[in-house]
């Protein structure tokens, strides 16, 4: 019986550490800056444990009974802590408050555990052995938890189910304690009933979490979801694996932080650097601020107008530490004016002219987005071009969606513009294409801003060469009343996925 008792010490120690790790991991996933988050969560947790230990002296009678209650409480609070924190982040403004409140409550309860247990078993062993054994198993449990957490739990179970699993262990310890110390308890019926109830609750939770993680969403996002929100306009998901942050809009990958510089340098510099004196720039779409970051590398630019439908998008990318690091706080630039509006009506009613217009919309996966790739739209955009003006359009992949790419190029041509299609390789996307469009002839730039990692003057002309497997196709233009592009796009991607 002695060894079993000490194994329960090991188990509750592991539980305590797991909850702490869950809280620290979630905080650093959701708030960014993992060193800060882990330090403060661990510090708070340990401090709260100290409070718990201090409070333990006020507990005098019914120690076993109280110990069982503490285990039960920890099982519930710790077990559901991860789910609760995710909900708090998604649906409330007070994530940090809830986080630290939870950390303190769990810390206090964990701090009470060991002192109480030592006093319970004090009569059976001499004091020296109690201290040695309890602390040994306590630290062993911590080691086990700290190894199992990153290697098995997070990759296999995820944070939600890991916490619940250890909640189950806490409750199991509680239940088991009712049997070992049955003689010290007045009545075991109620407390055992409670244990079974909580066990059931946690089991259901694990089953549900498993069901959730089995959905397509988790198959799409291979990495940990650090942020997910249904805005009024779209389903916005950020994932992270090590230092790679990925943004998905309605399940479509928008960028990977590892190689987005390739995409955004290619989107901006071949066009913008070719303009003699660019002053006013318009960005349609691109609420992540990454295109704006590139545009800000031209000091002569006086104003940038960013039109993005979704205020949540521009808000997150101007406030979330991890993301503002990525866009170098571009959305906070004094040169930038952010307009949260539907692009087509905005373009139709606005009368400003621009030297460079960036059209960076999600791919034409449906007829609503398809409107933003029509002759009518491009004609409306072209009315905003200044005499030296150039348009650049993100135009999906000329490799995987060759018909779609050339449909977009031909649509721009049909809208009365000269077109200059080009392509680059972005590892997370594959071959990706853009079209420059202008009223005048285009000449590749002879100089570029310093500090670019991908685009260089010598390499630009080669981007405009298309090998045979991506060569131009005679595809009809995309019209409002005949959106061939949406059907082509659907077909293109179906073809390669089969």
């Amino acid at each position, binding site marked *: 019986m002695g060894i079993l008792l000490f194994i329960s010490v090991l188990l509750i120690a592991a539980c305590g550490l797991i909850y702490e790790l869950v809280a620290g991991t979630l905080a650093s996933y959701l708030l960014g800056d993992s060193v800060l988050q882990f330090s403060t969560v661990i510090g708070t947790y340990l401090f709260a444990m100290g409070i718990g230990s201090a409070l333990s002296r006020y507990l005098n009678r019914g120690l076993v009974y109280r110990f069982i209650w503490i285990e039960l409480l920890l099982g519930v609070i710790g077990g559901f802590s991860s789910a609760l924190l995710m909900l708090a982040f*998604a649906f409330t403004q007070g994530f940090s408050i809830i986080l630290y409140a939870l950390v303190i409550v769990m810390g206090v309860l964990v701090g009470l555990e060991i002192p109480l247990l030592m006093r319970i078993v004090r009569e059976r062993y001499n004091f020296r052995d109690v201290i040695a054994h309890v602390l040994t198993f306590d630290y062993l449990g911590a080691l086990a938890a700290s190894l199992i957490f990153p290697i098995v739990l997070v990759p296999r179970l995820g944070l939600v189910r890991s916490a619940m699993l250890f909640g189950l262990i806490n409750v199991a310890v509680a239940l088991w304690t009712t049997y070992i110390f049955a003689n010290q308890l007045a009545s075991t019926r109620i407390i055992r009933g409670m244990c079974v109830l909580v066990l059931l609750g946690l089991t259901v939770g694990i089953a549900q979490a498993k069901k*959730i993680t089995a*959905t397509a969403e988790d198959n799409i996002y291979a990495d940990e979801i650090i942020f997910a929100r*249904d805005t*009024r306009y779209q389903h916005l998901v950020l994932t992270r694996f090590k230092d790679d942050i990925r943004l998905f809009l309605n399940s479509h990958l928008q960028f990977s932080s590892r190689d987005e510089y390739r995409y955004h340098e290619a989107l901006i510099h071949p066009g913008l650097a070719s303009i003699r004196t660019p002053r006013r720039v318009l960005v349609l779409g691109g609420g992540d601020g990454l295109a704006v970051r590139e545009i800000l590398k031209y000091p002569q630019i006086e104003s940038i107008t960013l039109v993005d439908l979704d205020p949540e998008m521009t808000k997150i990318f101007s406030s979330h530490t991890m993301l503002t690091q990525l866009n170098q706080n571009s959305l906070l630039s004094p040169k930038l004016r952010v307009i949260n509006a539907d692009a087509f*009506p905005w373009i139709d009613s606005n009368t400003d002219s621009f030297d460079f217009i960036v059209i960076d919309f999600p791919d034409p996966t449906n007829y609503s987005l398809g409107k933003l790739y029509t*002759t009518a739209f491009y004609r409306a955009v072209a009315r905003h071009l200044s005499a030296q003006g150039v348009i650049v359009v993100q135009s999906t992949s000329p490799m995987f969606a060759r018909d779609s790419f050339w449909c977009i190029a031909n649509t721009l041509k049909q809208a009365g513009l000269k077109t200059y299609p080009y392509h680059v390789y972005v590892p997370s996307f594959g071959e990706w294409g853009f079209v420059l469009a202008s009223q005048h002839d285009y000449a590749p730039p002879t100089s570029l801003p310093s500090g670019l990692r991908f685009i260089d003057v010598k390499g630009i002309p080669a981007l405009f060469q298309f090998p045979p497997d991506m060569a131009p196709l005679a595809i009809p233009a995309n019209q*409002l*009343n*005949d959106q061939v592009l949406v059907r082509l796009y659907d077909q293109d991607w179906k073809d390669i996925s089969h």
Partner: protein
Amino acid sequence: MRRRDFLTTTSAALIGLSLKSDRPIPGSFVNESAQLGHQLRNHASFSPPTKTEKSQVVIVGGGIAGLSAAWRFRKRGFTDFVLLEMNDAAGGNAGWGENEITPYPWAAHYIPVPGPKATYVRELFEDLGVLQNGVWSDRYLCFSPQERLFLYGRWQEGIEPAVGLKPQDREQFQRLEEIFTTHRKSGEFTIPLELGRSQKSADLDKISFADWLRDQKFDSPLVNWYMNYACRDDYGALAKDTSAWAGIHYFVSREPEEKGPLTWPEGNGWITRRLLERVGENVRTNQMVRRIAPSAKKSSASSKRGFTVTTTDTQFETDFVIFAAPTFLAPYLIENFQPQFQPQPLHDFTYSPWLTANLTLDRLPDSRGAEPAWDTVFLDSPTLGYVDATHQSIRSHIDKTVWTFYWALADGDPAQNRRTLLEKDWSYWKEAILHDLERVHSDIRQCVSRIDIMRMGHAMVRPTPGAIFSAERAHIAAQQNSPDARLAFANSDLSGISIFEEAQYHGVTAAESILKKISRR
């Protein structure tokens, strides 16, 4: 269950919110003109008019025929006319409404891209900027996706059934198309009708479209459904109550050069609005005409007598009248109308009763995975489905809209259906509409915040067998051609089919014939 759904439901439960609870849906009958009209039928007594006005021409009826006559007058620089409209807004079957979300149609909502013969329609669209240098404006051509049909629990693009066809269905659709192509080549099935209609095919007007289909061995249920849908859509009638000539005309008359049709958020109400911008100052609303009688004294400018047109409060002395209201009203209004066709005048003028409803949607209902289309039709529904008023918006994000729901009460006797239309109350029709929509959009009741319903007893003329080549119809339409005639009929029902192009054609030709007579003097 997806993670986010789980999170939403859980959090809703946490804060004790209930997402259920069917809210009551408000709404009413709107634009009720039956009561007004029935005063005429019952020869109700009116107080005598208090004012007298003079104008050279009075146009009776502010639908597209009357508005087109007015458009022609003003375009020719002639302004000495008034247009009398009995309701508080002109438009007739091109009426419209508007709420905080969008303008929406109350009746006709599109015009097929006009062919080369429809010169007046093309001229109007050039005036309105819809046709510029021979190019149709892409803002007014119906956006993709145009039409969808729900059948066998799934969607298809287009209304002609293309899913689940058996070999004989396929063969019959193809054979039908070949027959239509032959008729198309004959050049007889034109819009306007008058420019192509010929006695050569008059026999087709003697039998019903259903009989013709049977004679031609078309027994595929899907072919017959589609043919019936077409007749209900354009004529408010079943194929068995439609002239075969008219049934064929529906498919043969339109061979668009451009993918259309032309449409606007408020449907043909958009044209009404543009026409009113041009002729509005000649329009008098709330002027129900009670009587049109030859003038007591000869008019000043001529030896011929003109007319006295009496409304609720005004007496108009005029030289000419264009009767652009539905022709079935003529016997109630015009003194000594058509004595040669007594005792049964207007035998060939049957009208179909219709119901339209506008549903305000606070959010878009579940559409079983399909993107919204302009026109949505359900296979085997007695209704005609609905049209989305925000479809023609250039916005990419639309989360509220108005659906215009169309229902021609085609099955059964029109007079009986008219009685049913008037007897049943608003909630009866509301439930019937929601019930129809629920077959596909299970959560429709949670999305609709208002349903307004318009009942039209005589919504459109019905091309029954014999109606297209009716002698009486030809006689009434030709009246204006007599050099002495001072009364011109102009309603689209003179063609036997009720479409925008015919209404406009008759309105413009009536205006032209009167302008000729005026300039001759």
